[in-house]
């Protein structure tokens, strides 16, 4: 990164007007600018904006047996969705899943980050060990956990059995299946969360602590008054990113439970997949209505997080 600090000069791209040649050259510059934006914009037009509108379009139409839109049905799909009992469960599952993953993963990684900031011998080993889940993707982590969770021959139940305890139906008990999926997700997230928080912790200057301890502060007070507030930017970043990721979770649900048992792990995204593609169905109208709801939910939640949380973040 260049060492020279940018001078508070006129905004990049603007120069003092010099007359006609300048206007011609500035027209050329505008053309160049638009040309440089064009590739990105083309991709966005084809794969973001057009699909957005088409989602809306599909959501207000019925479809034929192949999935093509047929007649305009207005808000029928939305009404069916909002008045059906399944959708309420889907929404509840989605939010509950987000809470089950975001809160523990940030809490655990915060504690771990604090522990790992100790400068003791061998801490590098621990840092690497705890960062290992980062090597996994959603698919690979879910596959490993699906083998662990098997209720008949899985090692987790095997260990419980050795301890004389009854096994758990990790993925087939409607009461705990969502928690099992959440555990796998939290495990996966830990590596990334830790890396973010460790970097943040490293940025907190030592003298702050020395000054505070000189003033008599110690223990949890230090953590609460100094560490956590100064970590606030990273924590806020993680909360936003983790929440959005939780709301968009798909791979682990598909691999571990296929939305079951009894629909207790069917989140909004999985429901979209299920309606539109699973079991040979092609219910694109209803699924698109759910997709629109997903968009609204993500926008609203992110807006809330910004409005509510960001005010409390202190940027250095």
């Amino acid at each position, binding site marked *: 990164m260049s060492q020279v600090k940018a001078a508070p000069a006129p905004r990049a791209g603007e120069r003092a007007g010099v007359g006609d040649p300048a206007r011609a050259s500035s027209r050329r510059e505008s053309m160049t600018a638009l040309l440089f934006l064009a590739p990105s914009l083309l991709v966005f*037009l084809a794969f973001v*904006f*057009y699909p*957005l*509108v*088409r989602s809306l*379009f599909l959501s207000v139409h*019925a*479809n*034929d*047996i*192949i*999935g*093509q*839109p*047929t*007649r305009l049905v207005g808000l029928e799909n939305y009404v*069916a969705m909002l008045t059906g009992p399944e959708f309420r469960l889907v929404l509840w599952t989605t939010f509950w899943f987000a809470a089950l993953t975001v809160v523990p993963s940030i809490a655990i990684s915060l504690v771990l980050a604090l522990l790992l900031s100790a400068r003791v011998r061998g801490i590098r080993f621990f840092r690497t060990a705890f960062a290992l889940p980062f090597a996994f993707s959603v698919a690979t982590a879910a596959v490993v956990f699906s083998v662990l969770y*098997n*209720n*008949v*021959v899985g090692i987790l139940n095997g260990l419980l*059995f050795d301890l*004389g305890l*009854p*096994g758990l*139906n990790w*993925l*087939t*008990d*409607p009461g705990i299946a969502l928690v099992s999926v959440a555990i796998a997700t939290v495990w996966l997230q830990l590596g990334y969360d830790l890396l973010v928080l460790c970097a943040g912790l490293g940025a907190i200057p030592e003298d702050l602590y020395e000054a505070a301890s000189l003033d008599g502060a110690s223990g949890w007070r230090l953590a609460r008054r100094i560490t956590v507030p100064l970590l606030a*930017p990273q924590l*806020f*970043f993680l909360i*936003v*990113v983790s929440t959005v990721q939780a709301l968009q979770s798909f791979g682990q649900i598909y691999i571990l439970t*296929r939305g*079951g*048992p*009894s*629909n207790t792990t069917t989140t909004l995204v999985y429901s979209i997949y299920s309606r539109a*593609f*699973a*079991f*040979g*169905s*092609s219910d694109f109208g209803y699924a698109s209505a759910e997709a629109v709801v997903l968009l609204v939910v993500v926008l609203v939640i*992110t*807006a809330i997080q*910004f409005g509510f949380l*960001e005010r409390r*973040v202190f940027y250095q």
Partner: protein
Amino acid sequence: MYSQQLHGQFQGSPVRLRAFGLIATFALVLSACSGGSGAAAAPSAGAPAANVLNGSGLVKISFWHAMNGTPDKALQALVDKFNAANQGKIQVTANYQGNYDDNLAKYKAAIQSKQTPSLIMMYDVGTRLMIDSGQTIPMQAFIDADKFDVSDLQPNILGYYSIGGKLYSMPFNTSMPILYYNKTAFAKAGLDPNTPPTTLSEIRADAEKLTVKDASGNVVQYGFGAAIYGWFMEQFTAVTNQEYCDNGNGRTAAAAKVLVNGPEQVQLMTWWAQMVKDGLAVNTGRITADGQNAFKSGRVAINIESTGVLGGYLQAAQGKFDIGTGFYPKIQASDAGGPIIGGASLWIDQANHSPQEQRAAWEFVKFLMQPENQTYWHTQTGYFPVSKGALNDPTDKAWVQKNPQFTTAITQLQQTKLDPATQGCLLGVMPQVRQNTELGMEKAILGQATPQAALDAAVAADQPLIDQYNQAKAGN
């Protein structure tokens, strides 16, 4: 930084909204225009005769299937044999497209892009949809044009894929459900290892002796275990000789209602839920692989599954325990029906395919139905041969002798009377209906609802799907 930028977004700008509106209008126009291709016209009656292949050079056709692992290798061997025998005339390229559900989704996408394969393997529950899609040409057209002799083919198997005597697709990988049991565990429990249970109450009686607990009270071996699989419900319904859906099981006219909440089905789920509650059966969930693993690992003594898994079972149990097979259980001893054949069949696509391609696909289908090829397919995979002649082939007989468990399936098929109930339900949304039924079964087994309520809920959930399908089919 990411967060800072997200923050920046919420300083709204009217200019931005206007631009978005422009793009939206443009996109709306585009999406209205890209309605995609409509369903193709109904297939023409005539099938291309053999001579269309004369002088047409090499005809290449694509074949989509859902076979992987051992069956895939066997299928590929058959394809290679066909290609070698038809050098310069026909070349078949077989491609594995994922499991049956994925296959159907991909096929629907292919219809939209007009890139369907010439020949596709579609599962049993996709039959009605394939007929309604208007993309295929019925096998009967070729049979009539060629005066093809179908007397060698098992009528009970052809029956599933026929309506009013007209065969729509050619069955290929056919399986039947049977009862598997651990003979070694039977002997240890003091039961006769050569007498499998035949009804639900007999299973329960045996399970009471077969469930073994260890010192701390944890179950080491369960008497019974099976995956919560909607297919099993269809089988039980057929065994009681009842129809799964109305209108002659969807064969006299398009089905309008699912009938899975009758008294015998409720009895079945009551039995199953009670078995799990009493600790005599384990609930391994809806994934069939988990149900199979439970039996293979010796944790479950009685299991119901398809003949297709026999090979895997024998391999897993080698040196551990002996496997016996029995007829698919009845709900009551007086039940007079029998199980439905399952698996998949082959469909020849007509829409957007030349007469040469259609004819080539038919030649390949005929090849697959020859007794010697059926024998090969059967002995390599354990799938049921469609050809009667295959069963009389010495290689086949030798295989059956080595795997006596398979005889059960043969006898079971031959003893089942063919009627609408045992032909199986034809329903456009059958895959989703199967899922809803599975959900109902699961609810009952988990004790989340009474069996009657759970099955009623499944039927209620099916109704809008069926109505929507019938409405869409009527061109609405």
